[in-house]
């Protein structure tokens, strides 16, 4: 029997199908090389993975010299590119070499003659000839093998912590508690003194009491047979779950019973709750909507393209959305009374899938190596805090009691959660978590971080007092 996972075998089957027309010996390099000769890179490259708000971290533009070197390398590659118009350039280069050689020979000859004529004066024959280096420079620069990285092509500084802080963070050895729940836990929420988790394949919600670390209720929320429970949001008086995902289900935390099931069309993604009002958004419909629990109906909506996450602050709803290029995000500030977008916060090329509220700021754990701070008053990014180490995947994050935690959860043995202290504006600790976490959600309650493992269990990470 194969030891490969089902997912891997599915991937292989797809690869097998594609391989019928895309053979293993495919060779794109000649065409790529030819295209490279025919195009020039832009003077300043567009943001890609780790762009920066700090202009000191911006990459320098390519210099003409580096372009010339690059081109000569392409033209001397072992591959066979398609014909390119280089003949005249090559002749010019050869001509330059001949002229340079003639000048050198002339200079050497003249100096030799002078030395011989002065021979009787000091007894030295053929004194050392000054090297006419500048004359040779053009031909040397055009030689493909002599590649010297230009200072202007040095890589941009990536998002890493200053050396004074790297590796010096205090380590918090976590105390872990494992709490089994239903099948395929998906989203966690903290509210009404409990941790709530959706079990997506069971269509249920588990409620965990942090005082005992026990599941004190398992609540079925999906309609018969649909077996899905996805996003969840909790307050002291209500818990809302998306099931289906075409249903909004309300749970009363005082009884642990479903008290309302509302069909929603189009379906909604992760809702947020504030002052008893539910804000929902949907990537499928590109809508931000306000849901009134009292009437169990939507009473306002506004169009937002490709929303990713919504949060609420006093007097504003903030929507993180994909800026349309697939590599960076923006935050839109929406007036909750009119639905108008009143401000746009550019993340300048950073990409993020979540944001948090703490104090007077919005915190954005980006996928590109930094935690961003947005001031809610000015609607501007005011600080960029590079992660202590590179992130491998979409980081999980949560906040509480003046701290922000970002988990670089890659399911690798050296995964870590970094703790950021808002008051000191410093990364203040690292919490090694092993390979427990892969994806999902992270919440803070009772001085502990909560997430889930791949073993259908909630993991409580107790922090020191």
């Amino acid at each position, binding site marked *: 029997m*194969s*030891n490969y996972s*089902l*997912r*891997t*075998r*599915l*991937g*292989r*089957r*797809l*690869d*097998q*199908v*594609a*391989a019928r027309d*895309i053979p293993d010996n*495919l*060779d*794109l*390099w000649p*065409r*790529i090389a030819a*295209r490279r000769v025919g195009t020039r*890179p832009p003077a300043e*490259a*567009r943001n*890609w*993975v*780790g762009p920066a708000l700090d202009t000191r971290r911006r*990459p320098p533009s390519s210099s003409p010299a*580096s372009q010339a*070197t690059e081109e000569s*390398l392409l033209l001397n590659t072992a*591959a066979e590119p398609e014909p390119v118009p280089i003949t005249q350039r090559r002749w010019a280069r050869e001509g330059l070499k001949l002229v340079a050689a003639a000048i050198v020979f002339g200079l050497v000859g003249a100096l030799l003659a002078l030395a011989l004529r002065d021979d009787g004066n000091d007894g030295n024959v053929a004194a050392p000839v000054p090297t006419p280096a500048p004359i040779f420079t053009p031909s040397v620069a055009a030689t493909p093998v002599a*590649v010297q*990285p*230009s200072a202007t*092509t040095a*890589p*941009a500084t*990536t998002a890493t912590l200053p050396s004074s802080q790297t590796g010096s963070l205090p380590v918090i050895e976590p105390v872990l508690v494992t709490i089994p729940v239903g099948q395929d836990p*998906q989203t966690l929420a903290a509210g009404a003194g409990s941790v709530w988790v959706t079990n997506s394949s069971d269509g249920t919600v588990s409620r965990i009491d942090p005082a005992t670390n026990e599941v004190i209720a398992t609540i079925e929320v999906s309609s018969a047979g*649909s*077996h899905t429970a*996805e*996003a969840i949001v909790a307050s002291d008086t209500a818990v809302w779950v998306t099931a289906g995902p075409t249903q909004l289900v309300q749970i009363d935390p005082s009884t642990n019973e479903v008290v309302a099931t509302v*069909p929603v069309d189009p379906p909604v*993604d*992760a809702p947020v709750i504030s002052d008893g009002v539910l804000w929902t958004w949907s990537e*499928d419909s590109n809508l931000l909507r306000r849901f009134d629990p009292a009437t169990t109906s939507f009473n306002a909506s506004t169009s937002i393209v490709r929303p*990713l*996450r919504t949060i609420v602050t006093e007097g504003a709803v903030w929507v993180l959305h*994909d800026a349309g290029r*697939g590599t960076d995000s923006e935050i839109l500030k929406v007036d909750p009374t009119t639905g108008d977008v009143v401000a746009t916060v550019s993340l300048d090329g950073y990409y993020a*899938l979540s944001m948090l509220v703490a104090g007077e700021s919005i915190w954005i754990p980006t996928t590109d190596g930094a935690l961003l701070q947005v001031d809610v008053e000015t609607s501007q990014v005011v600080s960029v805090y590079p992660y202590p180490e590179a992130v491998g*995947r*979409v980081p999980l994050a949560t906040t509480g009691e003046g701290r922000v935690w970002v988990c670089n959860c890659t399911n690798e043995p050296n995964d870590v959660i970094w703790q950021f202290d808002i008051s000191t504006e410093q990364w203040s600790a690292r919490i090694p978590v092993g390979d427990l976490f892969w*994806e*999902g959600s992270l919440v803070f309650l009772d001085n502990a971080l909560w997430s889930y493992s791949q073993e259908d269990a909630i993991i409580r990470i107790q922090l020191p007092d």
Partner: protein
Amino acid sequence: MVVDERDAIKRMKAGDIRGLETLVRAYQVRAVRAAYLITHDRPLAEDIVQTAFLRAYERIAQFDAERPFGPWFLRSVANDATKAISRRRSTMSLDSVADRDVEDAAGLDPPDPGPSPEALLLRAESDGELWDALGRLPLVQREAIVLRYHLELPEAEVAARLGVATGTAKSRLHHARKRLQKLLGGTRSHRTSTDQVVERLATADPANGTMEGGTER
């Protein structure tokens, strides 16, 4: 390979185009296949991948050399393939079924989800059948399937690449699998667990079809 890759990226950052050649030779086949699974158009897939490599070279100064190049690059190729197809959407008949997403999303699915769609995917009688079924998926579902199963990304990364929440990505994969189930002619008599699927695969007779049946390459 990791050493070669890091060296290649260093060379590219130093302006040495030959670093790109190393990466092209390492990832071109997988990248074109991923793009091809999404576009169903080989010339277009090859063009997308060529462009993606050139773009990577032009922007290599901003790439964190500590991060693996392959996963990022393959994700960007899949994204480019989807965008390219989106631009041609009005002329491609295979996307006309995208509207059927609404049916699934509206809760019209039968109560019993039937046999595992993943099992059906593996049990497709021929490569051609699977290819046709894949081509009849709505574009967003096809991209999700390729990201999740061909490129083997976790759901959170599928979500990141699709620009949606993880829950949305899960839903999209769920609907994609169910549509494949219909396209591959699944019955609805019982639910098949993953373990049962793997067991059936392991005991299947390869002579009766093109299913892998546990053979490792």
